[in-house]
């Protein structure tokens, strides 16, 4: 790779690590502007997984033979890399799961069902992805707790001035919010929200799926109690993500899934649970996927998270400037300095699916739809938006191609 944390990120050079870009799309180079949905994978990640399967594969933990030990070592080394990546105090606090959605469900089920009841309040935000919204709405409904939503201002930023109002007339028990909005790119003030949540005696649950791939994530500095991350958005494979939680909370919680590996002792009368993190990792772990996630963390760390954040912010700023040149395009969300590399917009008179379909034929992949944020779409007064999202392999020229593609859309629908 040859890129250090000090140097400016060289997207053109990094692209060579990603085999997907070797194939043309509709006869044109692929401009993949949908990394917020899922990222592409560098060869380093694919190779690490193949090597694991070819040389170290067996089931983990229980085996006493050499291969099983190697496999266990691979899984646990990935856990340690993950711990270091988010600056968690202990690897026991890293629970490997399928993705951020499963992590958020784990907290909602395991913590929520045992700690919520009538008179309690659960606060989500109008910006929330459905994965940190629907589980809380469901668990609140089942337990008799009240489900509330913190509104946004016109720039797509949280109305922190309304927090105390949101807490009126009940016991605030859960504050659930994303660190970076998947549809507007808004960077939320989670440190502030975590402090406020703790003053209320509530836990702070943070969906960091859109943050972890793109910026330094320090769980101790952030002050939240739970952090959920998906591996596939950060150059890792699909099928692996993780939950970080404070050990004292994780220890106090009931298991979410039951079965093999998560037990201490199984008897006919009763079963006792294993230690952290195994209590929450029933069944065979996604071992090769964990190794892939570890390789992705190595890759991102070598590029440098600060360089990635800075680069994507520049791209977002550039994209917002270019879109502002088009009077028939409406962009949503905060100014570039307070957003990540995500730009949502609409083209006057053209539905996002039509925009995306025409762009596809120009080799440009964007997302069109509600982005799993229907409450936000309602707020914006639209049913869907177009979303372009950037990553370390995105080149500025691809933003130019996007703008040229939008002119083409305009021509077709003129």
């Amino acid at each position, binding site marked *: 790779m040859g890129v250090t944390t000090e140097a400016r990120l060289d997207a053109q050079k990094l692209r060579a690590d990603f085999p997907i870009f070797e194939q043309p799309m*509709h006869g044109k180079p692929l401009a993949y502007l949908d990394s917020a949905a899922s990222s592409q994978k560098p060869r380093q990640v694919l190779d690490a997984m193949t090597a694991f399967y070819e040389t170290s594969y067996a089931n983990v933990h229980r085996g006493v033979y050499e291969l099983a030990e190697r496999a266990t070592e691979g899984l646990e080394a990935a856990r340690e890399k993950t711990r270091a990546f988010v600056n968690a105090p202990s690897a026991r606090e890293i629970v490997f799961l399928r993705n951020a959605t499963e992590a958020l469900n784990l907290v909602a089920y395991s913590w929520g069902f045992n700690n919520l009841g009538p008179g309690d309040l659960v606060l989500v935000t109008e910006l929330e992805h459905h994965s940190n919204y629907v589980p809380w709405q469901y668990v609140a409904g089942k337990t008799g707790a009240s489900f509330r939503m913190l509104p946004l201002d016109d720039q797509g930023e949280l109305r922190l001035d309304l927090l105390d109002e949101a807490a009126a007339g009940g016991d605030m028990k859960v504050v659930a919010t994303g660190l970076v909005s998947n549809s507007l790119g808004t960077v939320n003030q989670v440190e502030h929200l975590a402090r406020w949540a703790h003053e209320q005696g509530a836990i702070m649950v943070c969906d960091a799926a859109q943050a972890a791939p793109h910026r330094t994530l320090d769980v101790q500095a952030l002050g939240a109690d739970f952090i959920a991350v998906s591996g596939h958005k950060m150059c890792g494979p699909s099928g692996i993500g993780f939950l970080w939680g404070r050990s004292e909370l994780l220890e106090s919680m009931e298991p979410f899934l039951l079965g093999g590996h998560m037990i201490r002792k199984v008897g006919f009368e009763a079963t006792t649970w294993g230690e952290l993190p195994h209590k929450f990792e029933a069944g065979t772990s996604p071992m090769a996927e964990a190794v892939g996630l570890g390789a992705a963390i190595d890759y991102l760390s070598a590029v440098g998270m600060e360089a990635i954040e800075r680069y994507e912010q520049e791209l977002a700023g550039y994209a917002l400037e270019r879109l502002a040149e088009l009077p028939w395009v409406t962009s949503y969300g905060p100014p570039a300095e307070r957003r990540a590399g995500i730009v949502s917009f609409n083209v006057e008179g053209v*539905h996002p699916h*039509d925009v995306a*379909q025409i762009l596809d034929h120009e080799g440009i992949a964007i997302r069109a739809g509600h982005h799993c944020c229907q409450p936000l779409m309602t707020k914006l007064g639209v049913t869907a938006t177009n979303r372009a999202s950037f990553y370390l392999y995105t080149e500025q020229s691809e933003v130019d191609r996007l703008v040229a593609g939008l002119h083409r859309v305009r021509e*077709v629908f003129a």
Partner: protein
Amino acid sequence: MSSEGFEELYRDVILDHYKNPRGHGEMQKPDAQADGVNPLCGDEVSIFVSFAEDGDTIEEVKFQGRGCAISQASTSMLTEMVKGRSAVAVAAMNREELLDEVGIPLTPVRLKCALLGLGVLKVALHRSKGTPLPEEWAGLEELELK
């Protein structure tokens, strides 16, 4: 699909129906009415039907909606196709008949856009006349036909 494929998709007749939808509007006292959405795209279509004196011939059909060009254009085309036909015949109308008229290559995702209007119309007729909802709609369970 070739790189020029979208021109095939967004051919003039589709764009014309999208920009100048036929039968667009509301009906004050419809004999039959239904709404539907395609949650994938957020397409919305409402259809209003009035019958002739025989109580079976579709005399007038109007629609309202918003969504992608494919959903709105195909619904517009549908209103032209069914006017003057009997409710029973339209309830039994094969989806290929509409798709032939639409005449563009559709991926499975966009197929749902194209068929939303026909689904909504069949629900309206079913409600008003008790006509059957054919089995082919079983494969389109993502559409919320209300």
